């Protein structure tokens, strides 16, 4: 058993990938079992991820060399740089891996009932499993070209999922096309940047490039390309135009996974700036660029959200706005990276807030999109003006919506409050104005969700929704799990921050340790 678990990093990729291609074959014989197969596989992957996380957090980073004689041997035969594809899993990578695993598993559970009436389910689950695979790949890999490959797989599978409902109407295809163009350009620019690195340093391993980084003119061009396209894929203003379309047109369970996929790009952005460039770049300038992107995302996202009447579009704009908090928190950390005193007093704290917010956002935004999906499942509309009085019929969904909305608006005792408070406190010491904008955005978020709650759930029971019932069990189960996680994180934030978030932040900041994991020696 232990020998199998030694290969856990490879299995996290291999299991969903295998299941993705078993699904269509199984679907030929028995249509019912494929949804269970997908849920089972992703559940197993979740267990594996938890196992890896436990190892990483107790014993330090794990290195997995593909095709090598020994798993942890990065430099065989006295080579000075690694040549094989290496998975380098540190606390930050596995932190994102955990989010992906939870979200993908619950999406599969939710889909059991939600997608039951659809045709082409074998393709749906194949794409969902591929998307999960590629997100794990992006988060665990230590090889920048390998990252590009997984990035492209993520693009292709998520685009196909966004356009999945195009058999019914044209809008999903339109959203899919926008997302595809954005994703393709992003991926090609990442490849161009990889070419720039390879041309200069003859290396594709992130740690190896980081150890010889000169920060030449070409590296600056690569940095500009990478920051631009990765923040575009993460859905930050001003490159956010694809986000509301893709998020609102995808099936609800997929939207939840898309949020996590955007965060995988966000993770890549942090990985590039912290682990690849770190102090070689002008941290104050790049940090401020990320902060400004964050503040713009927060503000424009929330102001655009207030005027929406489509519930999923509204939530998608909130997703942009919440991405801003993460960029703000981590951007502050980057801006003070070269200043040890400031880093110690509030830089690390700000980053903890930003990174913790990634996990919290995946949970509560996932929950909110699932409740929107439940409303759509029962009422057949996403238009808020046509909903009303649904709390009478859908008590569970209404409760979960309150939990999600309170969490996103930063109301205690839910998890959004925990991470936002850390961000406010630490960013205030960096620049009070930024902190005030963040609080203002939080108030606007609350206002917008009060409106949604009022128009969808409150009021007298409407005539044409008399027969509406609560959603099926698998959907309730998925939402309940997320709600429990939200409340748990909200009640014990210091536990999570201390054991999961703080190691992740330290893994990002400490570039020397990142390179030493591969190249040896401190």
């Amino acid at each position, binding site marked *: 058993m232990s020998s199998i678990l030694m290969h856990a990093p490879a299995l996290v990729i291999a299991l969903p990938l295998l299941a993705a291609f078993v699904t269509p074959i199984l679907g030929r014989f028995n249509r019912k079992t494929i949804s269970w197969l997908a849920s089972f596989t992703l559940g197993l992957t979740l267990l594996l991820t938890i196992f890896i996380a436990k190892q990483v957090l107790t014993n330090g980073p794990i290195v997995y060399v593909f095709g090598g004689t020994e798993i942890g041997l990065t430099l065989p035969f006295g080579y000075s740089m690694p040549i094989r594809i290496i998975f380098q899993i540190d606390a930050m990578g596995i932190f994102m891996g955990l989010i992906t695993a939870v979200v993908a598993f619950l999406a599969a559970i939710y889909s059991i009932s939600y997608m039951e009436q659809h045709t082409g389910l074998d393709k749906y689950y194949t794409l969902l499993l591929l998307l999960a695979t590629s997100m794990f790949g992006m988060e665990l890999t230590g090889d920048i070209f390998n990252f590009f490959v997984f990035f*492209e797989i993520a693009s292709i599978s998520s685009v196909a999922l966004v356009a999945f409902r195009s058999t019914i109407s044209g*809008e999903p*295809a*339109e959203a*899919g*096309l926008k997302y595809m*163009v954005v994703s393709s350009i992003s991926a090609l620019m990442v490849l161009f940047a990889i070419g720039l690195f*390879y041309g200069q340093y003859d290396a*594709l391993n992130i740690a190896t490039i980081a150890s010889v980084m000169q920060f030449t003119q070409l590296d600056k061009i690569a940095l500009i390309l990478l920051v631009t396209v990765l923040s575009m894929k993460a859905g930050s203003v001003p490159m956010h135009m694809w986000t509301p379309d893709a998020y*609102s047109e995808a099936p609800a369970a997929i939207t939840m996974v898309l949020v996590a996929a955007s965060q995988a790009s966000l993770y890549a952005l942090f990985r590039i700036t912290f682990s690849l460039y770190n102090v070689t770049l002008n941290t104050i300038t790049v940090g401020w660029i990320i902060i400004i992107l964050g503040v713009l995302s927060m503000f424009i996202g929330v102001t655009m959200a207030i005027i929406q009447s489509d519930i999923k579009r509204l939530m998608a704009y909130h997703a942009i706005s919440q991405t801003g908090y993460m960029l703000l928190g981590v951007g502050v950390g980057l801006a003070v990276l070269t200043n040890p005193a400031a880093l110690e007093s509030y830089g690390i704290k700000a980053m903890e807030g930003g990174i913790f917010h990634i996990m919290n956002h995946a949970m509560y935004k996932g929950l909110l999109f699932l409740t929107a999906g439940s409303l759509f499942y029962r009422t057949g509309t996403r238009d808020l003006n046509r909903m009303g009085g649904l709390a009478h019929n859908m008590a569970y969904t209404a409760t979960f919506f309150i939990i999600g909305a309170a969490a996103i608006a930063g109301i205690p005792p839910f998890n959004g409050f925990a991470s936002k408070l850390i961000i406010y406190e630490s960013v205030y010491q960096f620049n009070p104005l930024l902190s005030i904008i963040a609080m203002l955005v939080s108030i606007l978020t609350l206002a917008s969700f009060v409106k949604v709650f009022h128009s969808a759930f409150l009021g007298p029971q409407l005539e044409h929704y008399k027969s509406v019932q609560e959603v099926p069990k698998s959907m309730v189960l998925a939402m309940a799990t997320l709600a429990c996680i939200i409340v748990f994180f909200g009640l014990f934030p210091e536990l999570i921050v201390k054991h999961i978030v703080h190691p992740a932040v330290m893994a990002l900041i400490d570039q020397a340790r990142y390179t030493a994991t591969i190249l040896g020696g401190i």
Partner: protein
Amino acid sequence: MIGNFPFVTVIILIGLGIYSLLFKKNLIKIAIGLTLIESGVNLFLIALGFRKEAVAPIYTQAPEGVKMVLPTPQALCLTSIVIGVATTALVLSIVMIIYQRYGTINTDEIRRLRG
């Protein structure tokens, strides 16, 4: 100067691709723009591995003392081409669906999602 010629071509290809993405209204031309950018990036990778008067990097076949080209960029490029085929196929199939649903491939008329 002549050695930089491939890189100039790369810039021209990528520039043309971005131009057609930004200014063309026809979805097929946008798809062509994407493939142009992709060709530019592939050419860039191949040009990186080029060495003058070098042979293919097959150790058992290469004559003694002759330089070989760098194989890694070719491997990268091959992967990128394969992925590019998948991307192009997906873009074109989505364009096909859009044409079925909207009856047009002009971006000015395909604007149901807005706000």
